[in-house]
């Protein structure tokens, strides 16, 4: 790829050099925050970073691949439970982390195969992903009793699994991470996922994924198999959600079926919708903003956070379907074009009513 097209590509997804500035910002927050914030404060911000990773998984699958996954919480939950079961059984987190990523990916591969190779329409994909995540919730919820155990771990049904050991240094279970360590691990994970997605989107694979979102028929007529690309994108998204699940467990210290809950999937949708579809920075900002809001409402205790979430979801669908980041980008772009117009000759822009429908 020439530097020119690389620059153009970066330009399209949030301004040239934005990748480096976002990375720099994340690193700054990662190492700066522990200097100013107490351990308890760090604990409260860690969940924001966990949710940011979760939001990125939804943002990639929905915003870039155009897959209406309404059940990302299913993968979050699978990742969380996979980590919990593995870390307790092995007594070491070294293998538990990759397991928490790979298990949701395998599950997504089977599910995605049926959905995408079965030519199931977008709306049905939404309903099926949602249904599967609810059934996973009900399934885990019904595992009370000592007969439901994996290795030495009782799944615990409604009560979940208590006292889950945190991450430890690779290959050394005797050195577990403390709260600050988990903060670094989580922010490191966020940085990694953000960079990975950025890299994927610049690769040929990522461009084809976006192209398929734009026009599946054209992609087919060029020779790409949309089913395969959607499946791979779906599986990547599941892996990221799984990692978020693993970090979620580390933050909470225990796990209950609540991670599979429908509101969890809804939150991911809201993070992306509020932040902006088709961006990577948007979901992160959306996650931080909304999760902070949920925590604040939750602490205050008189109003159920669901009421606020529902209103936000409806309001954004009705009023700002593109979210905050594209809104800001459009404003900046407008300011730039205005300046350009004053300098050079205006280019006539043909409004074309032919837009590819949501079929």
């Amino acid at each position, binding site marked *: 790829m020439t530097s020119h097209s690389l620059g153009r590509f970066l330009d399209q997804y949030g301004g040239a050099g934005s990748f480096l500035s976002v990375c720099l910002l994340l690193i700054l927050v990662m190492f700066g925050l522990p200097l100013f914030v107490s351990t308890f404060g760090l604990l409260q911000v860690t969940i924001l970073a966990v949710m940011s990773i979760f939001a990125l998984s939804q943002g990639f699958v929905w915003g870039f691949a155009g897959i209406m996954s309404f059940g990302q919480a299913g993968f979050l939950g699978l990742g969380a439970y996979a980590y919990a079961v593995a870390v307790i059984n092995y007594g070491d987190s070294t293998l538990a982390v990759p397991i928490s990523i790979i298990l949701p990916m395998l599950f997504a591969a089977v599910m995605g195969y049926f959905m995408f190779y079965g030519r199931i329409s977008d709306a049905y994909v939404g309903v099926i992903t949602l249904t599967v995540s609810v059934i996973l919730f009900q399934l885990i919820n019904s595992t009370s009793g000592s007969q439901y155990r994996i290795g030495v771990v009782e799944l615990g049904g409604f009560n979940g699994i208590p006292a889950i050991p945190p991450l430890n240094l690779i290959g050394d279970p005797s050195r577990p991470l403390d709260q600050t360590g988990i903060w670094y691990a989580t922010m490191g994970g966020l940085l990694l996922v953000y960079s990975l997605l950025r890299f994927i989107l610049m690769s040929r694979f990522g461009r084809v994924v976006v192209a398929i979102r734009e026009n599946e028929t054209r992609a087919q007529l060029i020779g790409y198999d949309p089913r395969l690309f959607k499946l791979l994108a779906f599986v990547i998204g599941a892996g990221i959600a799984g990692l978020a699940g693993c970090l979620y467990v580390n933050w909470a210290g225990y796990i209950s079926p609540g991670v599979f809950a429908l509101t969890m999937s809804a939150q991911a949708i809201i993070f992306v919708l509020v932040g902006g579809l088709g961006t990577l920075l948007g979901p992160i900002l959306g996650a931080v903003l909304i999760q902070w809001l949920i925590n604040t409402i939750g602490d205050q205790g008189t109003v159920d956070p669901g009421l606020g979430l529902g209103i936000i979801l*409806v309001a954004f669908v009705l009023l700002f379907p593109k979210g905050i980041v594209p809104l800001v980008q459009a404003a900046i772009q407008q300011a730039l074009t205005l300046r350009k117009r004053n300098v050079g000759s205006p280019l006539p822009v043909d409004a074309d009513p032919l837009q590819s429908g949501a079929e």
Partner: protein
Amino acid sequence: MDLAGLIAFNVVTGIATLCLITIGLGVIYGMMRIINLAHGELMMLGAFTCIIATEAGINIWISIFVLSPLVVGIIGLVLERTIIRFLYGRILDTMLATWGMSIGLTGLIVTVFGNNVRTLANPAPSFGIGAYSTSLYGLVIVAVAVGALGSLFALLRLTKFGLILRATMERPGMAAALGIKPDTVYMATFALGSALAGMAGAVLAPISGVSPVMGVAYITRAFITVLGGGAAIVTGTGLASMLFGTIDELVSFKASPVIGSVAMLMTAVVLIRIFPTGITGRFLRRSL
């Protein structure tokens, strides 16, 4: 033999229950091609209406068959006028908006009534099949399901309103030619679907218990049934309920209700793989 009788009774009740759970969703899906993600919460509102009314001393049958459908129908009407109608033609946005409605309604009820389970006294006595005892309330559910499907069929087949509905379903432009705005038809449809959901929630309240989060328990089965049944409201809901209700009951009896749901989902996935537009989309394209 007694056991076989009991299982048969449970299968029939299961089919009827599924039918009730699905019919409001089916009406809205069949007419508007919208999967209403707030369906479970509309049922929840029906159950709450019923329990509040009976606690206020109103006869339970009046609560179930008059108040709950009326109240939830009006709520549906308001939601359609204030939210859904701005999103026609945008299926995915509509789904998201109904999802927002679903979370918001749950949150609202939790805020007002608290997140706990209430129970409604079962108004029907129990009876015995040989050595087994079961509730006569199953018969009520069967009667209501048959009644609901029957009246819906009559409404679509025999009334002018039904004619307009069918015309709009075939092609939205047709209704306009009959002098009816499709907009009005959709409004009525959404209210009707909501009312049916409200009634279903109320009918099932005595056996399910009533809580703000009860909607989730219904939606998976309702979604699976609608996807499997296809767009034909009466035959789709009826046939799919028979198929999935039987599978659900038998597997639940052998294993557990959750495994029953899993079996339903598997069947649905295979079914959609073979008939992408559901049973009725494949075989009974012109049915109701």
